[in-house]
């Protein structure tokens, strides 16, 4: 997107080039938009746009390919890490990125993410955890918090009946193939800035050939949570971030 800068005025912030200039289908206030922008920024800054092959999930972000201007493959629900493994193995020169929601990655796709991580597959995985199945209408996800209501846990999630929230990234982080794992959030501008740094590092880790890298981003789903965007951001800060604490979870890149 070309902008006409007012005379004598420096651009502080602009839409990254790799973010296609088109309005998204996401609901007002949805965190996917922020994560998309961060990915576009990082890929642009690292000069990876021309050699990235990204894998889209099944979830609200299935349309990521309409917004991020790189080559994409659409994976079946949950299988993005397997699809990406196939790409990685036959295209050693490509930069391979997966994008998945929490239903996609932490439920149906559990085996695929665990084994891509276990193999230390050279992939950068972006995991947008909004604690809900957004696309299908707000059902409980594996990461839904205890007590949280959803269309499939209408009385709130109960451990004894629905099971416990699964700390997916911590679980993956114990595997030696995982070179880097971090958790960011979209709660406010500073957090978004840190999330961008995690994403950037997770991309570099792949470029350095160090192993599997994953960045979980805790995000909001105002519609699935039945809240206004502002309320959803408050909940993200006050409730969700207390359970899924942002930060670097493991960094094995110093070891090699």
């Amino acid at each position, binding site marked *: *997107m*070309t*902008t*006409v*800068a*007012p005379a*004598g*005025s*420096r*651009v*502080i*912030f*602009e*839409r990254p080039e790799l*973010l*296609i*200039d*088109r*309005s*998204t289908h*996401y*609901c*007002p*206030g*949805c*965190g*996917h*938009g*922020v994560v998309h*922008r961060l990915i576009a920024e990082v890929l642009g800054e690292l000069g990876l746009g021309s050699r990235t092959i990204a894998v889209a999930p099944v979830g609200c972000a299935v349309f990521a390919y309409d917004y991020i201007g790189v080559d994409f493959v659409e994976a079946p629900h949950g299988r993005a890490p397997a699809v990406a493994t196939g790409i990685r193995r036959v295209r050693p020169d490509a930069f391979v990125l997966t994008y998945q929601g929490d239903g996609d990655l932490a439920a149906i796709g559990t085996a695929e993410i665990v084994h891509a991580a276990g193999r230390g597959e050279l992939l950068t995985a972006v995991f947008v955890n909004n604690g809900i199945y957004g696309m299908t209408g707000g059902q409980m996800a594996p990461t839904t918090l205890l007590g949280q209501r959803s269309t499939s846990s209408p009385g709130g999630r109960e451990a004894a009946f629905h099971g416990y929230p699964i700390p997916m990234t911590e679980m993956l982080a114990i595997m030696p193939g995982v070179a880097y794992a971090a958790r960011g959030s*979209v709660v*406010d*501008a500073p957090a*978004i*800035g840190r999330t961008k740094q995690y994403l950037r590092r997770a991309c570099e880790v792949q470029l350095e050939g160090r192993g599997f890298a994953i960045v979980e981003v805790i995000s909001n789903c*105002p519609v699935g949570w039945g809240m*206004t*965007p*502002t309320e959803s*951001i408050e909940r993200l800060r006050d409730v969700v971030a207390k359970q899924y604490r942002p930060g670097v979870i493991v960094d094995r890149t110093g070891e090699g």
Partner: protein
Amino acid sequence: MIAVAQDSLALPGAELPAPAGSAPGTWSPLHIATDRCKGCSLCIGACTKGALALDETRVNVLGYHPIQLIDPAACTSCALCARVCPDSVFTVFAALKTPRGTSR
């Protein structure tokens, strides 16, 4: 009758029109792609200067009341709004506080 807001038509490569929401003739540190705005208000919460508000008098092509910069003078070009906006509505230019350079 309330008019439907019409501006940057989201054509790739299209030039941004004059910043919306600012009084004609005044310069604004923000370019706002009004018809991509979904009125989520997250930028309003992010702006520490209270410079933003929804324009309740208009509905954009997506069906939302779009954001507007209600107080251009207060804007410091901090870009907090832009960083939290899920729809990348804003382009932020350095504030022209000092005639010779940028404010930060």
